[in-house]
C-alpha cells in the first residue's frame, strides 16, 4: 500500500509511472536508479507491503554527507512534478507465495492513482532467445491495447521492435504463439493483468545475462529516453546519467594490502 512520506498525499493524476520488474540481472532496478539519481527526484512515499522482503539502508542517492543518513526501505516512490513523472523503485524480491497479491496491489494502485501511463522496465534471459530474436537489437517492447492506440505509431516511428511471440512447439508451423519472458519475474503476469484491466502500460525490456549488468541498465534507460524524452539528449553523444553512490563496491570490499 502506498504511504506518503510527507503530510500531504501527492497527486499522480496525469503522471507517467516508471517501475522496474525484479528480473534477470536487476536491469530494471538499475535503470530506475539512474533515473532517480540523475533527475535528483525527491522521495514522496513508500510502498509498504508484506509482499516484499524487508530491507533498510541509508540514502542510496546521497550527494552530500547531510542527506546520507536518510533511511530508505524496500520500495519507495519518487516524483518529479515538472516532468509529471513518478518512479517506483523496488529493492528486494517479491516473496514467492505473495506474487499474486503483489500484482493485485500494483494494479489497484495504478488504477486509483490515475496515472496517464505506466512503464515496466524489465529484462529476459539472453540465452533463451529464439532464432528470430537473435538478430539485431536486444531491446524489445510490449504495449497494452489501451496504450497501443495512443503510442503505437510513435514507437513504430522510433523503429522499436515488439517482443516476438514464441511458438509453444517450435518447428510445428501452426502451433500456438505465446508470450514468453523467461527470467522476467512478474513482467508477463503484470502485463497480462494490465491488458485485462485496460490499463495503459508499456513493457520495455532487454535481453541480458547475469553478471555486470550496468551496461544493460544504461542501454535500457537510453532506449526509454528516446521515447519519453525525460532528459535532453545532447547533439553529440548520449545523455550523461549520474551513477548513484550506492553502486560502489559492487564486486566486494577493498583488497588486503598484505597481499602485495
Amino acid at each position, binding site marked *: 500500500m502506498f504511504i506518503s512520506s510527507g503530510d500531504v498525499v501527492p497527486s499522480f493524476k496525469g503522471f507517467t509511472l516508471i517501475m522496474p520488474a525484479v528480473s534477470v540481472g*536487476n536491469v530494471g532496478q538499475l535503470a530506475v536508479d539512474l533515473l532517480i539519481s540523475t533527475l535528483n527526484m525527491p522521495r514522496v512515499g513508500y510502498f509498504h507491503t508484506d509482499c516484499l522482503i524487508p530491507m533498510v539502508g541509508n540514502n542510496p542517492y546521497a550527494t552530500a554527507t547531510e542527506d546520507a543518513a536518510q533511511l530508505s526501505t524496500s520500495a519507495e516512490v519518487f516524483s518529479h512534478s515538472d516532468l509529471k513523472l513518478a518512479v517506483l523503485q523496488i529493492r528486494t524480491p517479491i516473496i514467492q507465495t505473495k506474487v499474486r497479491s503483489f500484482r493485485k496491489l500494483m494494479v489497484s494502485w495504478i488504477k486509483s492513482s490515475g496515472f496517464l501511463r505506466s512503464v515496466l522496465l524489465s529484462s529476459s534471459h539472453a540465452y533463451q532467445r529464439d532464432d528470430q530474436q537473435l538478430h539485431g537489437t536486444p531491446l524489445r517492447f510490449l504495449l497494452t491495447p489501451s496504450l497501443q492506440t495512443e503510442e503505437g505509431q510513435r514507437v513504430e516511428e522510433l523503429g522499436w521492435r515488439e517482443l516476438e511471440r514464441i511458438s509453444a512447439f517450435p518447428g510445428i508451423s501452426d502451433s500456438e504463439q505465446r508470450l514468453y519472458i523467461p527470467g522476467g519475474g512478474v513482467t508477463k503476469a503484470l502485463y497480462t493483468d494490465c491488458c485485462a484491466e485496460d490499463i495503459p502500460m508499456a513493457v520495455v525490456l532487454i535481453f541480458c545475462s547475469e553478471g555486470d549488468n550496468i551496461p544493460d541498465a544504461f542501454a535500457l534507460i537510453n532506449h526509454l529516453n528516446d521515447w519519453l524524452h525525460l532528459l535532453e539528449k545532447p547533439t553529440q553523444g548520449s545523455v550523461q546519467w549520474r551513477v548513484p553512490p550506492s553502486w560502489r563496491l559492487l564486486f566486494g570490499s577493498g583488497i588486503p594490502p598484505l597481499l602485495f
Partner: protein
Amino acid sequence: MATFFGEVLSVYSRAVEEDEYDDMTNENEEDEQIRREIEEKRSVHVHWLSQTDGGSVPCSDLIIAVGPNATGFISAYVLSSGGWTAVGWVSLWNERSHGSGRPDTAPGPGEPSCILYQQKNSPSVLICQCSCYVAEDQLFQWTEKVFGCVQTRDLTVTVLSDCSAAEYKTPDYLSGSSVPFLRSLRTGAHKGPVACPPLEQPNISTGLAAAVLSHCQVQRIAAVLYQCYSDVLQPDSLTMQTYRAAVSAVLKLDQNPSADVLQKITRVSELQTAFTCEAERNTKLTGGAAPVETGYTNWRRHSSFPDAGNDVRMPSSWSCVPSSPNRFEVPI
C-alpha cells in the same frame, strides 16, 4: 546446491522463473485451500502472560534484540540483574521450528523463542528478545502484530542486531583489530543521539531488524538500529560488549555481566570446540608439552583488546583455551 567442499548452500537466483508464476495462476480450489491452511499455520501471534484489557501496552522504550550476540547481551547484561519480568511471548511456526505446529505453550528456558520482558520499577520499558528464526514471509506480520499491542505514541525503539563482518563492504581493507564494531541506521522520526557512526552505503540490513525499521519509518516512530559486525561465528563476550554504549542510553546497565549466563550462552559453541579442548587437556594430564602455542597466542591477542578483562575476570582454572576463533571460553 553442494559446493566443491561439500557444504550445502541455499542458492538464491535473482532471475526469478516466470513459469512458476504461471503454475500458480492455474491452481484449483484444493490448492487454494492448502495455501490458506499453510498461511494460517505460519501466522504470528502475540500472547500475554498476564491479563491485559485488550488495549495496547503503554511503552516509552522498546528494545528488540535479534541474533545470538544481541540476545546474549540482553541475557547477560540486562536480564541477569533481575528487575525484569516476562510479560508475553510471540508464537510462530516455520520450517526451522521444532515440532510440527505453532507452539501453544510458553517456551521453556533455552529454547529458541521470542519473549517480551517488562522492567519492574519502570514498566514502560519493554524488551523483546528474539532468538528464534522468523521467516521472510513472517517478518511483516511479526512487526504488525508486535507493534499492534504496544502504544506507539512517544515510543522510542532500539533494535540490536548481529551481522557477519564478511558482509560489511568498505573500500578499505577491514583489519582484524577493528572488529567487532557497531553501525547505526535510524528512522526520520528519531532525533536523539546515536552511539555510533551511521551505516555506510552500499551496506544494508535485512531480516527482522529491517522489518522493524521499515515499519517505524513508515509509521513515523522513532527507531534506531545498532548493527554489530563481528568476525566470530558464535556469540562471544567481546562482541556483546559493543552493545553497551548503545543500550546504556536507555537503561542503566550492570557493571559486570553475569558469568553464569555467559557460560550458558557460550556452551553451544563450546560443544563444537570440545574436541580441541579435550585433546589439549589430555596433553596436560599426561604431563606432555605445554598447551599448544596457538592457544596462548590466541589468549594474548584477545587480552590485548582494550576492553577485555576489565569486566570479566578470568579465573586461573580457565587455562584450557582452545585454538578456536572464540574470544571467550569457559571450562567444561
